């Protein structure tokens, strides 16, 4: 996790952060009119960008995704308290693929071991989609902007479609060329340092916290509140307190897992 601080010493990583953010904004802005939940989310093929750039630029993609989402909210007329949850969720969305890949495969290039590598890339992309759904769904519900069951699931489906359809093929097309140009994170930061000491534990905690958070969020909002299925998670303040308190341990575990990586 220390690379989140050390990357700011490298001018190239700073520029890559700005570039990742600008790329994300450019991909999000044209679709701001395709609203799914007003003021909160829209159809987002651009959601493929943070996962792709996370494999390429590592920590720069995490900051780039966070900044990019805030800038897109500002320029697209959706800026508000929800942008805070948006920053946190998108930051982790751009951070989780990089840390999970590094923990499992070290400095190896995606695709080096053939098909099994691409399956791993796809699985990591799924975990990062679950992560952003849990974090933004939780944050927006706490702020009283949208219920978890609606926003969390929309973000999950939206991002899964974009990452699986676009991120993986784009990564296959771009990684080698960018690595040869010395623009991937392990080239810029000289391999990114030693492998994390508790990598396995970190991976297990991050995956368990993300999946567990989603399942817990669905259970809390769908059944425990005693409301109709269609009204899931829309139980007003009672629902917000239940989601806020129920998902807090999972969010804390997610951050702890990331800290271990």
């Amino acid at each position, binding site marked *: 996790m220390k690379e989140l601080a050390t990357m700011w010493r490298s*001018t190239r990583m700073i520029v890559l952060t700005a570039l990742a953010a*600008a790329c994300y904004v*450019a991909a999000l802005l044209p679709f701001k009119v395709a609203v799914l939940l007003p003021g909160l989310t829209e159809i987002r093929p651009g959601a493929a960008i943070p996962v792709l750039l996370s494999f390429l630029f590592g920590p720069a993609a995490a900051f780039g995704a966070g900044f990019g989402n805030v800038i897109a909210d500002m320029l697209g007329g959706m*800026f508000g308290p929800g942008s805070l949850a948006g920053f946190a969720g998108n930051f982790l969305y751009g951070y989780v693929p990089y840390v999970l890949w590094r923990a499992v495969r070290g400095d190896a290039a995606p695709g080096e071991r053939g098909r099994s590598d691409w399956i791993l890339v796809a699985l990591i992309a799924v975990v990062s989609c679950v992560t952003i759904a849990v974090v933004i769904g939780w944050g927006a519900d706490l702020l009283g902007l949208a219920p978890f069951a609606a926003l969390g699931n929309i973000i999950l489906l939206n991002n899964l479609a974009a990452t699986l359809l676009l991120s993986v093929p784009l990564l296959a097309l771009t990684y080698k060329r960018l690595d040869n140009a010395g623009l991937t994170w392990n080239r810029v930061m000289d391999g990114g340092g030693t492998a994390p000491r508790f990598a396995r534990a970190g991976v297990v905690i991050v995956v368990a916290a993300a999946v567990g958070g989603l399942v817990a969020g669905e259970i809390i909002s769908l059944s425990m509140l005693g409301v109709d299925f269609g009204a899931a998670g829309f139980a007003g303040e009672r629902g917000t307190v239940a989601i806020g308190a129920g998902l807090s341990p999972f969010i804390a575990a997610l951050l702890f897992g990331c800290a271990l990586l």
Partner: protein
Amino acid sequence: MTFSFFVTDESFYGRCHPVTRLLLLLLACVPPLLLTNPVPMLAVLAVYFTAAVAAGAWRGVWRVKFFIVVFLAVAIPLWAFVHNAGDTPILRAGPFRASAGSFLFGAAMGLRLICFLVAALVFLAATRVEDLAYGLRRLGLPYRVSFALSLAFRLTPLFLESASHIATAQRLRGLDLDTGSLPARVRRYVAILVPVLFAALRRADQMALALESRGFGAQAKRTTMKEYRVSWRDALWPATMTAVVAATIYLRNTL
């Protein structure tokens, strides 16, 4: 096409210190979050619209009129049918029920989003990217981080322009983005995204070299072209906004 909402920094809002502007934006988010009744929410929105006119942000508000309509058109039915207000239902659709209370709640939620939108537009109409970066720096954000943020703002129009040129060039070569299933169309965007990404990275490499050759990060203490001074406005407007927050709390407890 313009991507900036900035109008002037000579308005009542723009003359405040950048840190005060950020504080005012933060305070402006509080009243809508406290309210779930559309009547006081309308009063708050009226205050924000007045501020938008005074700050010269009304053109920005007009530019995003689509969102204002959509916020209300989607939020009211969405919340009306799924929010349990506890009163007698007046409409039913399968498992969904809507009551007068849930319709009012939906209207309040739509107005809440419009309040956030107008508050953000007032901020953007009076704040340049460098003002934002300066304000964030004064609040403790490291210079390099605020630099990355402001650089991202500046790169965005360049990226959009480059993407538009590449899309036109690919269409001329026969790329069809308008037919086929949605996944097929999305996959065809790869032909645009890859050249956009490579063009951007070429620029990034040159930019990093240019920054370092100009001594980027050589000095720990930074100087700025523009000097920002704290004035009486930096006490008046936060105090006024605090009064609006206090009035909202009063309205919330009495209505």
